[in-house]
């Protein structure tokens, strides 16, 4: 593909409603969906709303549903699609529409505020924190998250059930909880919160979130399932139950 004219069907509208609008636009060699959207914006629809920042898959701003699949538009090459077929771009469905491809993702930021803070243990006598690389590998995997919110977008617990949002943190935030719970230095305990207020039990591990993660984070296998196990250990282990009752303590053991 050196240069060709493509048909883009882009959803336009606001919270009051909208529809797909068709654009005929040039696409050049090597371009991604976001490049073509930018060309439409520059030449045909200056007011077409789309979020983006880095255009290199680092910032997670340009999430949308391309031909029905949740993707980063900056990392989706145009040559992925059959020549001559229209390419459809719609906003993420799970979040309220602001305008065109831009959605209100504030739910995620509100949920982030409810995560109890990182609380490190004291430093070693020499003033350092010693951690082995192999002990942080799994947490570093979670730190790769670029907060594109595509995992939140596909999660069926909230995708079709707005009413679940106040008591369901969602895959992005479960990664956040997992990285804290598994952080070698952290001393906080968030398991009861996960169970009672963050809806960890709602997840029935269909792995939709892991499938769309542009960073290939094993959200279900490495974060959510281990979190579920930790919660089970804590709350359904009879010995720990007795200890908790007797001491009134609720600490990590």
């Amino acid at each position, binding site marked *: 593909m050196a240069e060709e004219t493509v048909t883009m069907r882009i959803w336009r509208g606001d919270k009051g409603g909208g529809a797909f609008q068709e654009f005929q636009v040039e696409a050049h060699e090597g371009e991604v969906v976001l490049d073509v959207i930018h060309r439409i914006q520059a030449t045909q629809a200056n007011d077409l709303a789309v979020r983006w920042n880095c255009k290199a898959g680092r910032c997670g701003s340009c999430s949308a549903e391309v031909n029905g699949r949740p993707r980063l538009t900056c990392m989706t090459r145009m040559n992925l699609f059959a020549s001559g077929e229209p390419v459809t771009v719609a906003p993420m469905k799970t979040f309220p529409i602001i305008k065109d491809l831009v959605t209100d993702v504030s739910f995620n930021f509100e949920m982030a505020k409810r995560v109890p*803070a990182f609380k490190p243990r004291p430093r070693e006598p020499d003033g350092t924190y010693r951690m082995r690389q192999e002990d942080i590998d799994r947490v570093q995997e979670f730190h790769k998250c670029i907060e594109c919110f595509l995992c939140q977008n596909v999660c069926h617990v909230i995708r079709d059930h707005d009413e679940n949002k106040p008591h369901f943190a969602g895959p992005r935030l479960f990664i956040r909880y997992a990285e804290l719970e598994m952080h070698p230095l952290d001393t906080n305990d968030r398991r009861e919160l996960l169970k009672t207020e963050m809806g960890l039990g709602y997840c029935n591990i269909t792995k939709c979130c892991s499938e769309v993660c542009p960073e290939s984070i094993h959200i279900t296998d490495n974060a959510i399932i281990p979190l579920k196990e930790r919660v089970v250990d804590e709350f359904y282990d009879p010995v720990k139950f007795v200890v908790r009752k007797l001491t009134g303590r609720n600490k990590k053991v």
Partner: protein
Amino acid sequence: MADGDRYETHEHDVIVIGAGGAGLRAAIEASAQGASTALVCKSLLGKAHTVMAEGGIAAALSNVYPEDNWQVHFRDTMRGGKMLNNWRMAQLHAQEAPDRVNELEEWGALFDRTADGRILQRDFGGHRYARLAHVGDRTGLEMIRTLQHNAVHKGIDVYMECTIVRLLKDGDRIAGAVGYWRESGKFVVFRAKAVVLATGGIGKAWKITSNSWEYTGDGHALALWAGADLIDMEFVQFHPTGMVWPPSVRGILVTEGVRGDGGVLKNSPGERFMFRYIPEMFRAETAETEEEADRWYTDKKNARRTPDLLPRDEVARAINTEVKEGRGSPHGGVLLDIATRRDADYIRRRLPSMYQQFMELADVDITKEAMEVGPTCHYVMGGVRVDAETQASTVPGLFAAGEVAGGMHGANRLGGNSLSDLLVFGRRAGLHAAEYARSHTSTPTVDTGEAEALVHESLAPFDRTEGENPYSVHEDLQECMQSLVGIIRAEAELRKALDELALLKQRVARLKVIGHRQYNPGWHLALDLRSMLAVSEATALAALERRESRGGHTRDDYPDPDPEFGKANVVVRQRGDEIAITQEPLLAMPDDLKKLMEG
């Protein structure tokens, strides 16, 4: 006041504009000092340009090389900056960077580890020892996320997707700022005792750039319009290694970590050409042969650094020359080869983002093939003139930190010194802005008439029935800056650029936007163009004034450094509509620090 001109008002002790590393660190500190703090940013929280930083944070932790210390880091920074740096900033930076890195770890950051469990450090250009604390090649993400998570619990009021268009003053003193919500297009007036600018850089005025849409020089322009001094605006860093192919990715950054981890630059005949470009200043500490250069990665005591890791200005100019003389790669860059030098597992582990970026965007497997790279506009050394200790600008109540501040990096910034700069001076700016606010009990008065006029002026593009598309004007501006105020400059071209900028200014005054105020990128660009033009003009004027070549400023007509220019900063200031350019002497470095420069 017409209905559409209405605005909401918020009052804080300190407002921080920009939420990258510097802004977040400043807000955390101001808030910790008890100041009522607002953090205002153009994007969503956590999306700022810091997220794209790859290689690492330079800090003399001495974990890998016990010989390292702040004095060596200071020396490297000053020499990298061609001795034009504000020495006191460079000193504070080198002294405080290790504490700031350790603090990030205490806040939850997980850097890659040494065998004995401490923070690992990597090699980078211009640094004598392996000095960069890092997380693979996504250090910026780790940093911004750590700061973001920390800030969430600090009671800071965050105003996301909110763009500031002008600072307000009460007499000489800062009084607040006027901005608009990108989402609704409605206006906001902030009343504040102190303002911290942390808006980053100006790269969006150039065509080939590693910078995101936000980098429109807002903070530089806001400071200039508020009467603050800018310094060193002629020094723009072209990072030597941006992607060049395919065209849609041109300019996207390829981390210096590729070379730090063993990658080398080659021209089309396959020659490691950097050995022909070692400047006198770095000859004594640079390897002469490929054998010595290769040995240096593991033996820093008996071998000298590879010329592939000379400071960025040197490498960018060398690549430019190779391409110009016909030894470039097929698409007009040079080759960056790590595939033949390190095994595939090592490359994927150390450079996972680079691997993914080339694989997905360019169909290149960097474990098997060389990358094509060329210079890309990356960073501005120049910025708001600040006091080294407090980050106070020349306007009372106005502070600046990070890329928007000038002085720290002199004529050229070393890789890795940016993230540490953000932390060290972000903290200082927040601390002193809060102190300033505390010592001024009265909140300054905002001139509501002025605020209303600014709102009205910002909405003017909607009222025009005829006028140009802002995207066309932006494209022409980028073309102008790329071709006339690029890596290599000359008087005739700079004068031509100034003429073109004058015409572009007239065109910006006549822009027309379509649609309505809600999330309208065309309108946002029309407003951002005003900042881009202001910084472009400042850069071109300062570049014309400096009739020598030094660091990130190369003049074809004055190819050598001139010792006289080595004693002065070029200062840009605006009074009324007039922009004045002056040369002012550098701060004198004390003798004990001068001694560190010898040898």
